[in-house]
């Protein structure tokens, strides 16, 4: 398996241009493994290019914030801001329940069962 590709420096998107350096309350509720998808029948009209790419990617199904960042070659921090923008506009929906939190016993047991089934 070939290792993940290091992003081409030329392709670096300047975070400031996309996020405008805005403070953003929704960002605080997003973790790197928060799962989102596009809201039904969302259009990407009237959006900037990076926001449009996120909507387009997410209209195919559910992904984590980290995967959106990786697939679109955006820094994770920038992706968080874009996803937060789109959540505020109801163009994206959060699928996982709220803030990332350490699993409880029940969930740990589920993880364990899932891993054991891999072997």
């Amino acid at each position: 398996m070939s290792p993940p590709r290091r992003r081409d420096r030329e392709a670096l998107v300047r975070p400031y241009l996309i996020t405008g350096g805005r403070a953003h309350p929704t960002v605080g509720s997003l973790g790197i493994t928060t799962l989102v998808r596009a809201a039904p029948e969302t259009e990407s009209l009237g959006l900037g290019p990076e926001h449009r790419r996120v909507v387009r990617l997410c209209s195919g199904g559910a992904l984590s914030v980290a995967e959106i960042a990786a697939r679109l070659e955006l820094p994770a921090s920038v992706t968080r801001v874009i996803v937060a923008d789109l959540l505020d506009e109801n163009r994206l929906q959060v699928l996982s329940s709220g803030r990332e939190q350490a699993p409880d016993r029940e969930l740990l047991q589920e993880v364990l069962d899932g891993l054991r089934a891999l072997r």
Partner: protein
Amino acid sequence: MGSEPSDEVYLAPTVRTAVKVLVLGPFAVGKSTFVGTLSEIPPLYTEETITRTGAVADDPHGISGKTTTTVALDFGRRTLNDRLVLYMFGTPGQRRFLSLWEDLAYGSLGALVLADIARIEESFEIIGVLEERGLPYAVAINDFRNAEMPPDEELREAFDLLPEVPLVTCDARERDSAARAMISLVEHVLSVCPQQSQESA
């Protein structure tokens, strides 16, 4: 469907819960290999920028004021059942990257620390930081060279591990072996997890 990405890009539509695990270790110890072995998708790569004081060590020229550094994260995922997915993040665990992996560690299940038997001391700092942060962990010695292993007891002493912390060997290239290391971490986390989640009234 046109030119949409292939289905395997996306999670099953029933998935509602994500858990994450950190895979930490020194340079070239096998973090990416480990993540790739257990991942159901080809490993992905992203970067996180650190803007806090933790980056100072990366600024040898002292061009301070703007202490930003970029840390590579590679990660993969494995769907564990129809509603649950596990994300695994491989990242260097050195103290200078602390602010990054503190963010990552938030809400995570725990960490798997990889070590190379020929240079186990390079994993010590990571273990120290995990203990400070109270994040549960297991140590997996990635057995590169089929090296002869010192007795378990000697290793545990070298790592200065508490008796309950798992110490396993693994081959990061083999699914069964990698899964076993991950299982030992989760079993450990389960064993230290409080029986009841403080239910009052």
